[in-house]
């Protein structure tokens, strides 16, 4: 039953460009890109409780890296551009993650918020590389002799990379590393007492999270085809937070569901820009008040109504101390 559903889902994803109008193919690519970011952010926030307001900054670093590689080395295959995006963003994640080790809670939120602003300022000031406010046109992704110039081709590129990233994340959270991260979320002191090198794993979470977002940034550059710094403002970071809150902290499928719902919602509210933050804000508040654990835990409860209980029982949640 489960494998049948999965197979049907996979077939649907593969056949999508033939069934759907062009715009919806583009939208599907965007969903996958956002899902990769959401998974990356969730590995950091959901698994180690480090909330980041700077993921739009990581996305920008990845996007601009891929775009600059593709522009400066026109023949290079898309894999090279994506790897460059991943490595550069992971390095930035390491550089930000090490000093952030000393910070927690709201200090970390502030530091990552500042990081997001600094990235946008850096893009504006490095206009020799990024063309600043004029924006940067991204050439078509190349794969050997082919140029991925249609929405369908780009969709398959995004889908393949996305599937690999999801598979990697699903495996990661079940390894020693994933369990160490979960232990850190539950209690840093207890994790340390059990022999988990907290500093190393928290930095690792930062690097992996940045790497995911960097890859997503590279894909984003090719899917959208044009980059400008104002696309990467703090509100985009807030959108990513909304995705993992709605989807469910600490859940990979939840991240994907949250990304899908909010990307489609964002798109359908495009004509009602004034109402968009109203809806997103209401979703944030409502998820926290009525659906802690997000879509992921709601789905768990639906599947097993008797055995189902929230990730943490309401009574046992630590109150403000």
């Amino acid at each position, binding site marked *: 039953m489960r494998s049948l559903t999965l197979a049907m889902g996979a077939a649907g994803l593969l056949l999508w460009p033939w069934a759907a109008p062009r715009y919806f193919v583009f939208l599907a690519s965007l969903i996958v890109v956002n899902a990769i970011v959401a998974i990356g952010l969730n590995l950091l926030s959901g698994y180690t*409780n480090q*909330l980041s307001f700077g993921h739009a900054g990581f996305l920008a670093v990845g996007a601009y890296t891929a775009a600059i590689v593709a522009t400066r080395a026109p023949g290079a295959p898309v894999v090279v551009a994506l790897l460059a995006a991943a490595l550069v963003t992971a390095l930035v994640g390491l550089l930000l993650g090490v000093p952030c080790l*000393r910070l927690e809670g709201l200090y970390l939120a502030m530091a990552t918020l500042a990081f997001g602003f600094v990235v946008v*300022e850096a893009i504006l*000031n490095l206009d020799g590389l990024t063309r600043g406010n004029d924006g940067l046109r991204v050439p078509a992704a190349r794969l050997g002799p082919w140029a991925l110039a249609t929405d369908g081709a780009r969709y398959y590129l995004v889908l393949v990379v996305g599937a690999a990233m999801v598979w990697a994340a699903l495996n990661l959270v079940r390894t020693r590393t994933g369990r160490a991260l979960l232990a850190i979320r539950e209690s840093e002191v207890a994790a340390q007492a059990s022999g988990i090198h907290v500093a190393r794993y928290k930095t690792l979470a930062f690097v992996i999270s940045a790497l995911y977002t960097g890859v997503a940034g590279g894909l984003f550059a090719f899917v959208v085809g044009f980059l400008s710094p104002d696309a990467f403002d703090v509100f985009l970071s807030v959108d990513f937070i909304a995705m993992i809150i709605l989807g469910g902290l600490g859940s990979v499928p939840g991240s994907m569901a949250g990304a899908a719902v909010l990307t489609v919602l964002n798109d359908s509210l495009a004509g009602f820009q004034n*109402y968009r933050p109203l809806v997103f*804000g209401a*979703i944030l508040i409502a998820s926290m008040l009525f659906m802690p654990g997000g879509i992921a835990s709601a789905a768990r409860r639906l599947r097993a109504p008797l055995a189902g209980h929230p990730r943490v029982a309401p009574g046992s949640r630590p109150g403000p101390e």
Partner: protein
Amino acid sequence: MTTAALVHVVVSGLATGSIYALMALSLVIVYNATRTLNFAQGEMLMVSTFAGWTVYAHVKLPLVVVMLIAVAAAALLGWLIERVIIRHAIAATHFDLLIITLGLSLVLRAAAGLAWTHDEFPFPSFFGTRPIALGPVRLAPVSLGIVGASLTLMLGLWALFTRTRLGRAMRAVAQNQRAARLVGISVERVYAASWVLASVVGAIAGVLIAPVIFLSSQMGFVTINGFIAAVLGGFGSMPGAVVGGMLLGVIENLAPLYLPSSIKHSVPFLMLIAILLIRPAGVLGRVTRPKV
């Protein structure tokens, strides 16, 4: 640069600084009670200021009355938010509360945009525009007025926190919630009082700064500098909030004289990153150790 011009720059820095200090204070008041950063503080300030302005636009009342209306609106808004949303999340973690206030800030800004549009409106000022000459130094009345009004308010807050039962109860809750409850303090009432007080302080800051930065749905963003000021001084410390605010205001005003203009906008953020790296506890904050 002449000394007189330097004094002028420093005084206007102190003026913006005292606004940052007021915003930092309102953040710290809520933080001390609920241990959460109120992301919606700037938007609460903006909505209260708009409420005062709306009355002023219809009936030309004296500005003191306008400020009182803004304060009343702020008190109501703070009380409502605490009562309707925050209290229902009383079992939530700090992380959850942070997300809730983040959502609130989005909702309030969008609602203000729908009610009052996203345009900028001029706001009447208490103070004249003719510069006051003190020897060779010429000072803007707005700067002096803002500094004076803020200092008065800070004195009032200091009296509230040291001389009244409510203030002492709030400080007790900030120190140890469980112990405060054991000695008979109603923690719920302190929560509500903290939200109302923070909202009121924010509204006064809003009415003071609105003539300078204009009234708009986006004006809440100045609170980011209030956050930074609070961190500079040591988050949770009220004297720290005042010192941090003044420090940030003066440095921000002095920096463009010595630094290339391209990084002018990043100055508060660079200061934030620097203080977090060098001394995360802030200038006056105490280093705390996690308890198991």
